[in-house]
């Protein structure tokens, strides 16, 4: 697979990998059938992402995209974090091979799922 050096760096040294105990919210996208699952844990204080962690099942692209996404949104306000798209994530990595642009590039969706979870919990 022709990955950029940046993808390989995030694959080898993933940032913010792991879980948060008692997270404010959790989001997960993908399924084992398609081969990529991304789970995001958020620690949110006053609508700011204080901490973010991820766990990913999938290929090199799936791991690298979730890793770099956590860097992009850590410390951000929720409204700004929500502006990050899957395309931004791929761009930050210096691009992805075309076949990886779909199910392996869902990190922003996973984040949005986590923020959705947060909003649902805090409506009650």
């Amino acid at each position, binding site marked *: *697979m022709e*990955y950029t050096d940046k993808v*390989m760096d995030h*694959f*080898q040294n*993933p940032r913010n*990998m792991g*879980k948060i105990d008692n997270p404010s919210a*959790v989001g*997960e996208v993908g399924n*084992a*059938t*398609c*081969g*990529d*699952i*991304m*789970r995001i844990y958020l620690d949110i204080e006053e609508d700011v992402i204080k901490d973010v962690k991820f*766990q*990913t*099942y*999938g*290929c*090199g*692209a*799936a*791991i690298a995209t979730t890793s770099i996404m956590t860097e992009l949104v850590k410390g951000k306000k929720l409204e700004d974090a929500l502006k990050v798209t899957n395309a931004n994530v791929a761009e930050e990595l210096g691009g992805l091979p075309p*076949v*990886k642009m779909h*199910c*392996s590039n869902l990190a922003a969706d996973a984040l949005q799922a986590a923020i959705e979870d947060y909003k649902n919990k805090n409506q009650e």
Partner: protein
Amino acid sequence: MELIYMDHAATTPLDQRVLEYMLPTLQDVYGNASSVHRKGQEARKLVEEARSKIAEVIGATPREIYFTAGGTEADNLAIFGVAEALGLTKGRHLITTSVEHHAVQDSFLKLQEIGFDITFLPSDQYGRVNPQDVAEAIRPDTILVSIMHANNEIGTIQPIAEIGKITREKGVYFHVDAVQTVGHIPVDVQTMNIDLLSLAAHKFYGPKGIGALYVRRGVRVKPHIYGGAQERGLRAGTENVPGIVGMGKAIELAVAEMEERGKKEIYLRDKLIEGILKIPDVRLNGHPTERLPGNVNVSILYIEGESILLSLDLEGICASSGSACTSGSLDPSHVLLNIGLDHATAHGSLRLTLGKDNTEEEVDRVLEVLPTVVHRLRVMSPIWPENLLK
């Protein structure tokens, strides 16, 4: 870092002795093997020598060997060639299995698309087809049975001789894709009752882009590439002299050294399998004993194949996987799905295929590296049981 190449089912390195034997054909022996003059005849002689060696090894006569540009072309020629030769007279029904290489599978899907009736036989959990199923699937309008000798992914060896007995009795042509077996385990078109057989040189330490189709005398096959009269009209185009000559030398060496190499590979294979199965939640894919000497294929649960390959590659280990993320499609390998694996288990497949130069030290190194790689990826995985949400 020392490189460890364990992807011999994908391709093998060119044997140094084969390279040396080929060199004159890339230099002085430049004649067109169809030319009347001495330069042409010099090339022709080498081409015919290669043809004879190949024939001898598989129990055929030289006139039954037709050179092609590799295994894929040989498979296509056998399948479309028979379909065209008999499709308008004897019938339009062909039988194959659900675990064939894409070169065979996609050829049958194309025939199906243009109106032929294709039976895809199932395999058991090890990837083996039941000869009885073949017997029952044959009809009066069946014109071809095509079954691979051994599977390129999981290494499972099919009961070819038993099937050959059935097709011969019923008078149906039998094509065997032996791309993974020639030079690795015995292949004999006589005792196995094979009518058409595909070979590719790059799987037995020969050059890439050269292969052959054996066509039993009297078996009707239509050409697919039109042009000159080369290969007695069945395969037009100026002969690939260096490839053909390399293939002849490679098959001679591979078969001469087959027994010894096979023993070594089986020892290393079984050591690898035993070691890898010590990692928790790993299963062996393919048959425990009826498998190619060099083939190891396992599914490592909770992680995905491409990330295993990348991690191994960073350690200098070259391997392969049937995961969707390595196939370029959205589905994992059809072979793994057809032996009953669910998608996740198929995505976690790892294939290590051994060759003549692999050593026990290399096997030990893989067994040292792999558990660490697996653990690192599992710690990252949301579907690893320890990471499941409470």
